[in-house]
């Protein structure tokens, strides 16, 4: 557990003439489950895009396991927000997961039976093996999310980034997904998720980063996820309803 999964120093990103995040410093410990929380407009999406190397940073350095994101790209997998996907796209569950292998396969390498087995194994990990031939338009929210998780699993990336993985999902599915994430974590994967539900942060995650244009605090939840920090991040008071805080 030597090198940090992500290390960001003095990160500033200007986007469309507006400073989205400024002087952001944090580290994400490897092989942990880390949440990124903050209000709307806090710059969470911008941070993710910067971490993935999709947008340029104005200042600052990001490294993933000691390397720059561009060098490290193939070892990061990304689970997008469900709203960003075109669910009418002609593709079935198996195909979506297979896309996780495109980086390895390149343009013309044949999709062999070994590859097929890896896809099936990933689908089994998320309990979606029976749905392999189903069109994604016919899946429920929870099932859709599990398919994308399977895609990350098949990539066998060391770092999995998720953008609001529990948005619009029923409670049972949420539990299932948390279990999958924990299992992946036990296999040595580092998990980072943008998370919106403050009441479950302590239950699901080891570490947390509190972000509102800058980092208010980061670190293990027990130390950092305090009423004071939360109030400072969200700019509100009276958050006693959040159990186990402060």
């Amino acid at each position, binding site marked *: 557990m030597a090198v940090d999964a992500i290390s960001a120093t003095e990160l500033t990103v200007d986007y469309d003439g507006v400073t989205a995040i400024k002087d952001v410093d944090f580290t994400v410990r490897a092989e942990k489950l880390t949440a990124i929380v903050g209000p709307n407009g806090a710059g969470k999406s911008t941070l993710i895009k910067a971490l993935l190397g999709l947008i340029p940073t104005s200042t600052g350095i990001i490294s993933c396991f000691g390397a720059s994101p561009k060098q490290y*790209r193939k070892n990061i997998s990304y689970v997008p927000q469900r709203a960003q996907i075109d669910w009418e796209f002609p*593709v079935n569950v198996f195909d979506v997961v297979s*896309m996780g292998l495109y980086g390895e396969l390149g343009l013309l390498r044949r999709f062999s039976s070994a590859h097929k087995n890896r896809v099936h194994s990933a689908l089994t990990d998320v309990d979606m093996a029976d749905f392999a031939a189903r069109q994604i338009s016919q899946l429920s929210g929870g099932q859709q999310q599990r398919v994308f998780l399977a895609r990350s699993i098949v990539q066998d990336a060391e770092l999995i980034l998720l953008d609001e993985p529990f948005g619009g999902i029923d409670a049972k599915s949420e539990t299932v997904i948390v279990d999958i994430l924990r299992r992946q974590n036990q296999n040595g994967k580092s998990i980072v998720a943008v998370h919106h539900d403050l009441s479950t942060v302590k239950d699901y995650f080891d570490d947390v980063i509190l972000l509102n244009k800058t980092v208010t605090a980061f670190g293990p939840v027990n130390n950092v996820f305090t009423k004071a920090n939360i109030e400072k991040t969200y700019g509100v008071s009276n958050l006693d309803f959040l159990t186990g805080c402060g």
Partner: protein
Amino acid sequence: MTELIGYNTALALVGALLFGFSSGHVGAFVYLRKASLLSDSLAHATLPGLIIGFLVSTFLGMEEKNSWVLLLGAGASALLGVVVIQWITARTKLGFDTAIAAVLSVFFGSGIVLLTGVQSVSVGQQAGLEDYILGSVSGMLLQDVFFIGLVSIICSAAVVVYRRPLTAFIFDPVLSELAGYAQHRMSFLLSLLTLVITIIGLKIVGLILVVAMLTIPAATARLWSTCVWSMSSLSALFGSASAGIGVIISALLPNLPSGAVIVVIMFIALGLSIVVTHLRGSNV
């Protein structure tokens, strides 16, 4: 007809079959990317370049209205159109739709002005330019078919070779980027393929109808398929078959413009597909 199929019809048929195949192929990805309107804008943006190419080839004293120069001009102005659309979308508050509409109308309008201006420059034979607006299969020559056929095969090959990154790029651009296929490169590839198909389609169906070649077979194929590979293959087959049938019909009956007949055939296929898949209770 003393023969079953004359030489001119055979030429037109080969050109149409190959072009229909590759335009269906490329069109499938344009459709999935939801860029059909962009391809229409691109097609209309070829007009000013066509005319400028015509003027250049005339004033350089090229005897035959050298079609290479015209097509080069068409490509250049379409490319400029794409650049302007991207600039408007990226740098101003106007949206993608507005940018497309603006470029389509301004470029096409300028083309019409140039066309009217050309007739008073009196260099003649500008009637040949109208062939590119509505297409002209009757004047297909062997060299045309070679060119169209070769370029069609290259475009189809490119689609097959790049099918994985194109699919990934359209479905999930971040995945494509992380897999090593930069978004802007994939976007450029798709735009380039669209541009090339448009250029070679000018002689067959003309710039007004080329968007149909890129859209209708893809839409038809979508109704029948559930994966990208089968959709693009079906789209290629529909495009090819419609083009072939259209050419045959226009050869058998008098006074039929081939380009328009092809589009009508494609539209009939689409209509039938909608009815059949609807009745069947499509599970797509």
